[in-house]
Structures are given as C-alpha cells and as structure tokens.
C-alpha cells in the first residue's frame, strides 16, 4: 500500500467504528426484502452483517440478481463474477441478464438501495467518488453515475476524514462529481448523518465519539437532532 500518513494532523481515523462496525451499523437499516447493490470495497462488507431473519437480494451490475458469497476455494467459475471482478456464487432464485437490462433495473428505479464509497459528499447530497481529477490519472467511471441517478436510496459508507485529516463531508465537492444531490445518508467511522433539505443532520454517534469531534471533522454545518439520546451506545 502507498498509504501516506501525516504526523502533524490529528487523525480521527482510529476512533469510533471500525470498517466492519460501520458495515454492521448500516446493515441494521436495510429492510427485509430489499433489492440492494453494494459497491466495491467497504460496501461489500455490509452483506456479512445483515441481521438474521432478513432476506436481501443482491444485484451486481454485470448481470446477476441473487448474488451469493465467494465460492469455496477451487469451486469458482471465472464467468461468475461481481462488479469488482471477483468470483462469487449465485443463490437459489438467482437470475442472469444482459447489461442493458441490468442498468434498466438501476436507472429505472427498481433497486431499493445502493451503498457506495466516497471521496467527498456535499451537504446538498452531491457525491464525488470516481476521480480525483489528477492530470496523470486514467479516467475510469464504471457504473457509479448510473447507480446514483437511478437507485431509490443512496447510502455512503466512508471514513469521516481522509488519511491526511481533511473532511470528506464538505460544503461543496472539489473533486469531479458523480451525481447531483443524490446521497441520502452517510455512515462514517464517527457517526450516522442524514443529508436533508437543510444540510447534514446528525442521526447517531459512534461509541466514544462526541458531537464536537464530529463537528470539527465535518466541513459543513452539522444539524443536531432534537432527541437527547445522542451519545448513547448500543
């Protein structure tokens, strides 16, 4: 990994929820029977934490509804893969289809939820998650712009700040946009935050995290909920 750390900037990366705990927290909020598309990376972890008794149908945009977990070693098929191009399985009741049908499901509003990573989320719901705009970068977009344009709910799961301590929740995205006003909710390592008509609204704090820490780590105003149970741990 080419991870860079800053010695000077105080980091929020190691407090609050771990990646798995963020995924677990998000998984509690997915309704039974939902059709769900999980992005590559942390979003994929969500599937491991869906509460018992709920049945979700996973969509992968390369043409499968009813995606199951990774195959046993040696039992995979190079032609049964997910959007991250890793081998997966097909659950009972699965269906294969071509790419135009797959994106008709996406764009046509047939999927209930998409979980994505983010470079930046603006307080009006704008999302940047496909490019840093660097001159030497190879442009690559995949299906993110279609997903955010069409899926009913868009949840972002992300570290609250970058590895150098910059807020990822901002007034306005500086990276190239993926979509305008598309994000409904953010699950970070520090908090659960709704994107409302009035901006970012705190829903829940991660254990051991206080409101001031979240405010300082957020690059736009943070509305506080009326209820007094913020800070309670589960």
């Amino acid at each position, binding site marked *: 990994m080419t991870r860079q750390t800053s010695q000077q900037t105080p980091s929020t990366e190691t407090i609050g929820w771990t990646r798995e705990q963020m995924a677990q927290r998000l998984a509690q909020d997915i309704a039974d029977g939902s059709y769900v598309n999980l992005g590559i990376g942390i979003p994929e972890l969500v599937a491991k934490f869906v509460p018992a008794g709920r049945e979700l149908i996973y969509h992968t945009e390369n043409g499968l509804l009813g995606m199951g977990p990774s195959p046993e070693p040696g039992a995979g098929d190079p*032609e049964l893969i997910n959007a991250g191009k890793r081998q997966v399985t097909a659950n009972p009741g699965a269906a294969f289809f071509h*790419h135009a049908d797959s*994106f008709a499901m996406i764009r046509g509003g047939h999927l209930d939820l998409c979980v994505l990573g983010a470079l930046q989320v603006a307080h009006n719901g704008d999302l940047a998650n496909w*490019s840093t705009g660097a001159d030497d970068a190879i442009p*690559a977009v*995949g299906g993110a712009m279609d997903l955010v344009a069409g899926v009913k709910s868009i949840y972002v799961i992300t570290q609250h700040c970058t590895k150098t301590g910059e807020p990822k929740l901002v007034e306005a995205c500086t990276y190239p946009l993926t979509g*305008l006003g598309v994000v409904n909710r953010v699950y970070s390592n520090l908090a659960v935050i709704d994107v409302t008509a009035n901006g970012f609204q705190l829903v829940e704090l991660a254990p051991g995290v206080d409101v001031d820490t979240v405010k300082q780590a957020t690059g736009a105003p943070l509305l506080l909920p009326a209820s007094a149970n913020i800070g309670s741990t589960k």
Partner: protein
Amino acid sequence: MINKQVTSPAEAVRDVFDGATIMVGGFGEAGSPIELIHALIDQGAKGLTIVSNNCGSGEVGLAALLNAERVAKVICSFPRTANSTVFPDLYHSGKIKLELTPQGTLAERIRAGGAGIPAFYTPAAVGTPLAEGKEARAFDGKTYIMERGLKADFALIKGRMADTHGNVVFNKTARNFAPIMAMAASVAVIQVERVVEPGSMDPETVVTPGIFISRVVEVPEPAHESQLVAAGVTYP
C-alpha cells in the same frame, strides 16, 4: 439452407478492415472472446475503434490487441485494470484515444444502436464532467442529457452454446454485453463451446435469437484471461 458456422476464429474475422468499429464483449474476463481477439491480432487490421467495458489485463486478449497498436480509440467505461500497464502506457503516450462513458450509458447506447434508436436521454452523469458538451433537456422537471446510440461494423462475443442458425445461450455473468452487441453490429461473430443442430435448443431458453448473429465458431475449451495472465502467457 442456413448454416452460420465457420471453421475457425481466423475465418470468422477474415474481413475485418482497417478503421473498423468493433464491439468486444466481456466484463473483465467474463465473456471476453480471447480466441477471436487473438485471431484478429493475427489478421492484422489496424486503426480500429473498440467498444468494450474494459481494456483487458496482462498482455493477452484485448490488452494484447491494444499492445499491438491496432487500436486508435476505445469507447469504454473502465479502462483501468490492476494488473495491466498496456492501456495506461498507450494513453499517457497519446497513442490511443478514450471516450469515457458511464457503464449503463454504454450499455444503453449499444442497445439503442441495435434497436434503431439514434439517441436517447438519460439521467446518468447530469452535472458531471461526462455531461460536458452534451445536450441537456428537462422532462417532468428533471434534467437529462442526450446520448447517441452506437453501432459497429463487427461484434466479437462469446457464448456457451449456439445452433447453426445463430441462436445462443450464455454462461452466467459472461452474458453481460454480448446480446446487445450482437444487435448493434453489422456482422456479429460469436465463439461458443459447442455448436448444435437447429432444434436441439428449447426456443424458450434462447437468449439471443439467430437473426442478430452472422457467424458462429466453435472453441471447445476457451482460455480464461486470468489463467493466461497467471501463467505468464503473452500474445502473440
């Protein structure tokens, strides 16, 4: 008497011409028609425009075609691959043009091209750099951008089984772009593991009807890109 079967990948791509637009099936390695692509490298056509979701990996298949400098332009949603330097090197040295298209827009452009629809409006990419220069229009209070349908001179795709009329079934997520590319190409060439006689396939299970397929070639044990790359194979 209809018989679309040809004897070899070489025969299947014999008339590809310089400057042709070719749709190449596959999402990652799933559905990538490696044997047809290698036959195209041997055939020698150059100055090609390739329409494909990705740009291959290692130095086999689509990446090998690019590496042979036969491709002037790609229309693609995700040209970056962890284990290939072919596209990045060509792109940085200005030897290849890229038309970056969101994946769903790419699929719909291909579907539209094959369905006789010259253009359509989509909500994807509105307000992003990929909407620049495109016509925007509001419908029912929401903004959309216009995208053009895509057609091709050839499609190179892969299936599991076909009959000699060109009716096809696919294998799992290898189906991806193949059915719509078959519709959008003047000459759709498909490699399948098994060719059967008409009547051998249940018409209810046919995924791509034969009207969209021009040539069928049997490749009984097709290579998988990841296995070739892992084995250190390069082509030619």
